[in-house]
């Protein structure tokens, strides 16, 4: 019996994790308790107790994590200053008379808002609130209206700054600045594919939003402070002028000053934004701290190495990648993206390294897989967010988001077969 426990301690922890999650325990509790109980089976209880707190403290005291609350707060402030409405007005004006122009404007607004907030849910909620009623009015139907926003919202994960990329960087000790820059080209390509699908989707809506150039410029000027922020963030990180954490802090101060100057932000709204950001930060913090403890236990028990070897022995490169994609699609059906990242990366990272993937390439690969989780039924959080603000049925939303999900799966293979797409920009960084 003891031999079995010694040989399979790591797998016992994985079994307990899934059992506890199934029993509705909060995921951070399930992670911490499963690894702690499994370590009690293997070690002296006093040693297990000390390891629990020492490793958890190490997981908490990582300076790069300070960027998390800063980008979260930037997003929550932006939500309260009507930035989503302004961005949508700008993209609507410039989308003009092309087929399905309002749908195209929705994806563009999602892309720009994502590049500021770094959050998929914040993007879907903010743009969706403005865009969905207009899309419905123009006859796109509930399935497409909700699907466009759900799909567009996922761009928040890959276009920098990105909260999952910060988590990935911390877990794998990869440069977060390089990860942000690595996400730019795949993010732009993905947004272009989304735009292409939306423009070609049927039935075509031909409502013209053509406005004179002077009016376009006036609308754009009104939002220029927000529109300029994404290129400034990317340029600041690309040139090495500021670290991602400093850029996050500058972004908070910038959007707060802009909001106060435009009289769209006041102290009660700032407080409300901080309250929401604090709750989200604490939720992510607990997942990270005890997720790191869980990951450390698995690594100590050689579980990732064993799984990696089993996959490599039984599948070639494309087969192994397909297995990982399938695993992510299945996990995405019942796990939220941060939890999915913290559970999957310690296991799949060694597989990716054995396949010869660069850590930056696998980071982008994993984050695209996280996007799939956001729009996969039954628990895709973007679907729930949009259901919450529009009351469109979840089934219809899932159908509307399905084409975006297929594009994301295709993008996973593109990233694997063409790693230059990811590596070109970070390799040219100063």
């Amino acid at each position: 019996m003891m031999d079995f426990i010694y040989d399979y301690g790591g797998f016992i922890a994985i079994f307990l994790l899934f059992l506890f999650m199934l029993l509705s325990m909060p995921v951070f509790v399930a992670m911490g308790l499963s690894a702690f109980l499994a370590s009690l089976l293997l070690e002296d209880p006093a040693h297990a107790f000390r390891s629990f707190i020492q490793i958890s403290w190490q997981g908490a005291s990582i300076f790069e994590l300070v960027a998390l609350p800063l980008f979260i707060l930037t997003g929550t402030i932006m939500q309260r200053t009507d930035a989503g409405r302004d961005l949508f007005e700008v993209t609507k004006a410039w989308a003009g008379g092309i087929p399905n122009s309002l749908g195209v404007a929705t994806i563009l607004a999602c892309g720009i808002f994502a590049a500021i907030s770094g959050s998929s849910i914040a993007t879907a909620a903010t743009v969706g609130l403005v865009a969905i009623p207009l899309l419905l009015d123009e006859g796109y139907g509930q399935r497409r209206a909700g699907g466009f926003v759900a799909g567009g919202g996922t761009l928040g994960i890959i276009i920098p700054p990105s909260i999952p990329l910060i988590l990935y960087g911390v877990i794998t000790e990869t440069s977060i600045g390089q990860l942000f820059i690595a996400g730019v080209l795949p993010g732009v390509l993905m947004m272009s594919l989304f735009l292409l699908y939306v423009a070609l989707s049927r039935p075509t809506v031909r409502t013209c939003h053509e406005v004179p150039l002077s009016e376009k410029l006036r609308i754009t000027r009104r939002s220029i402070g927000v529109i300029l922020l994404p290129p400034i963030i990317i340029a600041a990180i690309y040139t090495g002028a500021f670290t991602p954490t400093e850029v996050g802090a500058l972004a908070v101060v910038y959007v707060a000053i802009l909001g106060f100057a435009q009289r769209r932000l006041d102290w009660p709204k700032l407080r409300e934004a901080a309250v929401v950001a604090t709750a989200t930060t604490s939720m992510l913090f607990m997942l990270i701290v005890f997720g790191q403890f869980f990951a450390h236990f698995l690594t100590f028990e050689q579980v990732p190495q064993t799984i990696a070897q089993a996959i490599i022995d039984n599948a070639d490169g494309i087969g192994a990648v397909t297995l990982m994609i399938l695993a992510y699609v299945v996990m995405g059906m019942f796990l939220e993206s941060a939890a999915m990242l913290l559970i999957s990366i310690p296991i799949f990272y060694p597989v990716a390294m054995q396949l010869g993937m660069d850590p930056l390439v696998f980071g982008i690969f994993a984050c695209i897989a996280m996007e799939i989780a956001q729009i996969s039924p039954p628990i895709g959080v973007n679907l729930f967010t949009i259901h919450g603000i529009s009351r469109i049925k979840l089934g219809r939303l899932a159908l509307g988001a399905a084409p975006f999900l297929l594009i994301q799966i295709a993008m996973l293979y593109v990233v694997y077969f063409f790693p230059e797409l990811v590596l070109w920009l970070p390799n040219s960084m100063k």
Partner: protein
Amino acid sequence: MSSVQESTGFVRTLDATGKLMTGCSVVLMIVLALPIVYDALLRALGYPTIWVFETTLYAFIVIGFLGNALAVKRGAHFRVTILAQVFPRAKPALDLISNVSVLLFALLVISSGLYFAWYSWSNTIVSSTLLEVPLWIPNLAIPIGGLGLLLQTVVQMCCGMPDHGEAGD
């Protein structure tokens, strides 16, 4: 189930303790960016500070642990609820299992956190930076955060579970 206002003085005291922790973490959240911006600007001018890196990290840790009371109150901690959806009649039992597990885990966090802070204090462990901060001070965030998790979960058990997902907006 009743609201906090209708509850006993004991529950209201627990809730007030949670609010105090929430207040501290929200204030830290609002001011967190300022020293980092100050340091970034000074660094650009060639005069980096020696205190910002460490103090903001500790502030972040305090936000993370003390924010637990708020996260529990707003239902922000993510749970898989598939079983409760498939078997609605099992939901009260699953909620009870979930709450009891959180209470046990909170006790583990409090006890291990107290041990960790005591160990740092009794061995005079300081940070390995120029500031040489006694580490028992930031270590105390762990048991205090665990206490917030415990107290707010007791409040939720007395007054009902919150709707999930509020934190994500």
